[in-house]
């Protein structure tokens, strides 16, 4: 059921069960996020989408919440860009910049919030991982849970079982493409794909022998999980298009023949 709530003084429509972030984005109000992706459930780990919420019944008390996890409600009043919100985001970006000084996206977001240089000492040997866990969640939703966060505290990182090549990985590169900072690296060379320290053989087109953008393990996995005929995942788009065009061309030829043979209607 639809109802109305207030975001930045604007009256916007929301539906039951939606989160404030979804409502705000639909209304064209920008809230920065790093760990959010439409394909997975919200998680609230990057803390960048913080907003200030209040209700008339709360006697002026204002709470800081993550908008990706805060359910929309009638008569809710939201501020997405107040000074308090900006200060919280500045702190978050300050910490992230200390962790990942080389990540371009973090640098850009931090600069937007006025953080040019982190006030904290930067990490030794920094990488670009902000530990948002989006790759882990996508792998869980779309693939096989081949990666997870390992260790605790300051040693926490995204890793594979026992640090070796992940046995369950299907090489679908979902983790690579959703990573907000581009930390996860992969290589596609000569029909082989290398990701997470494991080598995958890429599927080849049955007709032309062309390398397809999916791995053999991925084709087997998708055929089983999505209940597909494996033949669907064994030909390249170009070969399929050519086949279909030839079939349609044959039909067109018969149609032309039919048009020529048909008695002229006057």
């Amino acid at each position, binding site marked *: 059921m639809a109802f109305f709530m207030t975001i930045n003084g604007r009256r916007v429509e929301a539906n039951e069960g939606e989160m404030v972030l979804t409502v705000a984005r639909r209304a064209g109000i920008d809230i920065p996020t790093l760990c959010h*992706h*439409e*394909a*997975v459930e919200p998680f609230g780990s990057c803390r960048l989408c913080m907003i200030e919420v209040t209700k008339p019944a709360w006697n002026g008390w204002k709470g800081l919440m993550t908008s990706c996890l805060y359910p929309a409600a009638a008569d809710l009043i939201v501020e997405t860009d107040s000074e308090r919100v900006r200060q919280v985001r500045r702190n978050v970006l300050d910490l992230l910049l200390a962790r990942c000084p080389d990540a371009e996206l973090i640098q850009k977001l931090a600069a937007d919030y006025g953080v040019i240089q982190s006030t904290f000492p930067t990490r030794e040997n920094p990488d670009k991982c902000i530990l948002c866990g989006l790759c882990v969640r*996508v792998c869980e*939703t*779309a*693939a096989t849970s081949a990666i997870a966060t390992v260790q605790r505290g300051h040693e926490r990182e995204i890793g594979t079982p026992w640090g070796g090549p992940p046995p369950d990985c299907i090489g*679908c*590169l*979902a983790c690579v*493409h*959703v990573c907000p900072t581009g930390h996860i690296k992969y290589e596609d060379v000569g029909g082989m794909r290398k990701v997470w320290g494991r080598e995958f053989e890429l*599927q080849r087109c049955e007709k032309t022998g062309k390398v*397809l*953008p*999916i791995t053999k393990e*991925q*084709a087997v996995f*998708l055929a089983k*999980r*999505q*209940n*597909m005929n494996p033949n*669907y*995942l064994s*030909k*390249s*788009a*170009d*070969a*399929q*298009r*050519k086949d*279909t*065009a*030839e079939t*349609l*061309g044959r*039909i*067109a*030829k018969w*149609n*032309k023949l039919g*048009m020529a043979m048909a008695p002229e209607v006057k």
Partner: protein
Amino acid sequence: MAQRLVVQPQYCIGCRACEMACAFTHGDKGQPGKSRCLTLTVGKDEYVPMLCLQCDNAACVQVCPVEAITRDEDTNVVHVDPEKCIQCMACTVACPFGNMHVGIAKIEVVKCDLCAGFGDNPRCAMFCPTKCLSVEMV
């Protein structure tokens, strides 16, 4: 109101106006190679324009592991949600007609959506001189 794109290859003269119309409507700088409608030559003076057929039991919808490809029940058009897509490229392989394309940036998938958001009037059909491509209301 649902509409359907009708392809009648016997009328195609291979002028590729549909490719250009598509590339200039959706593409960047009108690159015809990145059009969602491709005209293939299958013989002497025989051409077949190939576009998404919006299949009823679509392979792309079935193969998507995150349900990013869905059918709009009102218009009967299959859409890709770029926000949901994880760029696993399974749909580009799964389409049995090869009509799921990789976009210009090389990381997104694009398909014919009958110009949804562009007046909901397929440009390829508007520019087709011989009515090889035409729109039918269903």
